[in-house]
């Protein structure tokens, strides 16, 4: 019968029309400004920079290595590297960005910067209501606008943030262990040198040159002293003094390292 197909189609339309009153899964949209759907864990809009702790600059993970700047497909990242260094989360002195700008009118939200970042410093934000009246300045995000605390990252990407935190904690523990071992060794060496210098300084008065030479040998770390020590010193006293000075210097270096480590912990 002619018109049968049309009637069949209209029945389908009617089923959808009345069905939308009874079955809510037929409604796939929400009325946006009043109701919002929470973004997915993986959702991505524009990048931001993560910092640990309270101070955005001190805790900034970015070390201005400029890998993201090079890899960014539309070249929307602009970084100026600092001339000085600040300690990063494991205490290693690193550069930091003096200027870090992302032009979000150019950015295409591809997440390549996040993937190539070796420091987990740049992550994707989920904020999307970014319209502004200023199309140039308003869409060029500078460092102050880009930095966000780690807590914010945890809020928007809980699983990803937990994974990153675990990895960073592991790295930190490893670095600390290494630093601790180094500090321990330095302290042991310094203590040994100090003790030796103290005990042998007295002896040096009597035994003279031979003892002094031995002392300098024991210090090991104090290379400057060794050089002067082996050289022909005028008297044993002077020799012993130089040796003990060197030991003191070594101890000082070790003790300087010590509070630094504690402060980071």
């Amino acid at each position, binding site marked *: 019968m002619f018109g049968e197909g049309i009637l069949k189609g209209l029945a389908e*339309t009617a089923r959808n029309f009345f069905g939308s009153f009874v079955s809510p899964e*037929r409604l796939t949209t929400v009325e946006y400004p009043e109701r919002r759907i929470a973004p997915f864990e*993986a959702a*991505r809009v524009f990048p931001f920079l993560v910092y640990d702790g309270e101070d955005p600059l001190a805790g900034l993970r970015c070390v201005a290595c400029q890998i993201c700047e090079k*890899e960014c497909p539309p070249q929307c990242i602009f970084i100026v590297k600092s001339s000085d260094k600040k300690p990063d989360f494991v205490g290693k002195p690193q550069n930091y960005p003096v200027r870090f700008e992302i032009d979000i009118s150019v950015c295409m*939200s*591809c997440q390549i910067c996040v*993937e190539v970042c070796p420091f987990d410093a740049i992550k994707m934000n989920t904020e999307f209501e970014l319209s502004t009246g200023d199309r140039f300045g308003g869409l060029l995000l500078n460092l102050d606008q880009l930095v966000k605390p780690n807590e914010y990252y945890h809020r928007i990407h809980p699983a990803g943030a937990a994974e990153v935190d675990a990895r960073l904690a592991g790295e930190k523990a490893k670095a600390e262990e290494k630093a601790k071992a180094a500090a321990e060794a330095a302290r042991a060496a310094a203590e040994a040198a100090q003790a030796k210098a103290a005990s042998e300084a007295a002896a040096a008065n009597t035994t003279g040159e031979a003892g002094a030479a031995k002392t300098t040998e024991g210090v090991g770390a104090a290379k400057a002293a060794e050089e002067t020590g082996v050289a022909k010193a005028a008297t044993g006293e002077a020799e012993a003094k130089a040796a003990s000075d060197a030991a003191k210097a070594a101890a000082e270096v070790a003790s300087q390292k010590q509070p630094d480590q504690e402060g980071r912990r």
Partner: protein
Amino acid sequence: MSESRIHSAAAGERLERPENWNRPQRMEIDGDSQLLEVSMGPHHPSTHGVFRMDVALDGERVVRLRPVFGYLHRNHEKLGEGQSYLSSMPYTDRLDYFCSLSNNWAYALAVEKLAGQQVPERAEYLRVILAELTRFQNHASSIGFLIQEMGASGTPLMYAFREREKILDLFEELTGARMMCNYMRFGGCRVDASAAWLDNARARVAALPGFVDEFERLLATNEILMARCRGVGILRPELAINAGVTGPMLRASGVGYDIRKVDGYGIYNRFSFRVPMGEHGDVYDRFMVRLLEMRESVKILEQALREIPEGPVMDPRLKLRNFRPRPGEAYGRIEAPKGELGFYLISDGGPNPYRYRVRPPSLINLTILEDMCLGHSVADVVLISGSVDIVLGEVDR
């Protein structure tokens, strides 16, 4: 008339291009009738973007049609040559913005061929799942657009977009973006799919056949649709083969050519599915071929979601940065929803490809537009160009 032109070109004759061929022409006097030159586009709702058709009309009949494109040209290939292999991946999303995951796959396939990389099993399955979901939503919305161009503005397109929305939600959950997914990498996929995602995908795929049934009841036997589509825009198989047409367009003309079957790239030879073919090569056949392909996609999806193994999606030793394949060339092609999508790469051992070439299905399917439109009315031109299923992002690159 134009058919013979293409045949003679195949025989090695030089094609003559008239002067000012891409400029609008003045009206021509032809005997006692006057030809009317109409410029359809570049901003015409039926052109799916910025695409112009210079149509010469004798009354209501088309006597000449020149597709003019390039309004959306953005240097895709040159950009690809100027940056690293990884940086080109997000740009491939923007070729055919309806099927970003298929484009990702084609590019990844070409680079993997170039570098001789192996893809883990789970990643292969994920690629198939995502590509078939992409094909499903592309065909659904393409049919919706086709019917909209016929005048049914609303219902079919809204139904198609309702279904597409659910598939895009899956994409967003996995890849982080709805359309510009940027998901696949050379040697695997970027992130793994969770068990919850796979369950969600299974549930949604289980609901897809119901949607195809509904779509079919709504449209397939509609008398108005049949009156408008049958016998309109006939593409003969010889012409389709000579012009290099691929995809549902070619299959609607009765040529059984599907790269999933021919090449068996990825793991497609593990799945059982059929390749639907048309008989007449008209608009209605193209519409039906797409509808049937949606069913076959669902079949592949069900198999892939059932068989997907556990394992890594990418070799953790692979480095994304400083990727330098050895010198050589490779052509990777897949059966994208619109036809054969290929990427041709030449490497000179450097971090950037020496040559980066895209073979876009939309552009090559568009070249026979005039041959299909001659003798039809203006309203049919809109319908025929809709049945080609073009995306201008891919045509112009």
